[in-house]
């Protein structure tokens, strides 16, 4: 696996969806290429930041709206 092949698969590497063979090739490449390793690590770091976005409660119960509109066409 070369650098451009590795970069194309970073996303799948992070998602754990690479095949066993590709995963092994990726591991070998990352061990030998500091640039790709840093690239992959920073991608992982930014995903961690994104995942820090917290979910919040819905501001109201949407059932009420549907029940009120229920008389209309469906």
């Amino acid at each position, binding site marked *: 696996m070369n650098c451009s092949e590795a970069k194309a698969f970073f*996303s*799948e590497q992070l998602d754990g969806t690479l095949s066993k063979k590709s995963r092994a090739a990726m591991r070998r490449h990352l061990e030998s290429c500091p640039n790709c390793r840093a690239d992959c690590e920073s991608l992982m770091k930014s995903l961690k*930041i994104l*995942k820090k976005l917290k979910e919040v409660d819905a501001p109201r119960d949407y059932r009420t709206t549907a*029940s009120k509109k229920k008389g209309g066409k469906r």
Partner: protein
Amino acid sequence: MIGEPLEIELVEQAKQGDNEAFNHLFVREQRYLFNLMLQLTGDVAAADDLAQEAFWKAFRKMSSFRFEASFRTWLTKIAINIFRNEHRKKARHSTLCLEEIPVPADGDRPERVVIKSELQWCILHNLRYHLPKKYREVLVLRDLQNLSYKEISGVLGWSLSRTKTNLHRARRMFRGQFINGRCKAFTDDYLCICEGILSL
């Protein structure tokens, strides 16, 4: 002991006009749907309106549900279509990004202090203003809502390979704002100094 009713049973009943079954489905999904809309729009009021619209549309279209996907995936597809329609309307107006607002260079710079600890705000801001719609959609569905590649392909109407490519580009673009851009402080301690957000 009677457990929670199965989704398939609730959907069957809702398809036959059972409003109580539909309410059960609503309750299960309303937090998910509101947060999905919030992540896509970055705006609480808009998310509230769009979530309501999506539920109402789902309610009306329930009889067309074919069990080809889970109820949530089906609902997500409805939600994405509503978001896209809204986005098209809004695209006619220019959106105001704080990046374009010059903030005074001296004094206490309260804006900077307030925003400093607002990681949540910064993430939503970046999704809303710094990612094109298609990248925002795929990033939200995969990394915030944990849909599989296959589910995302179905919801967004993309091939599997297009989904993977766009996800890859979306992640790189999102990273660019925080790591290669001026928001570099994020990566060290998750504390936003907003150098990449405001023109300080």
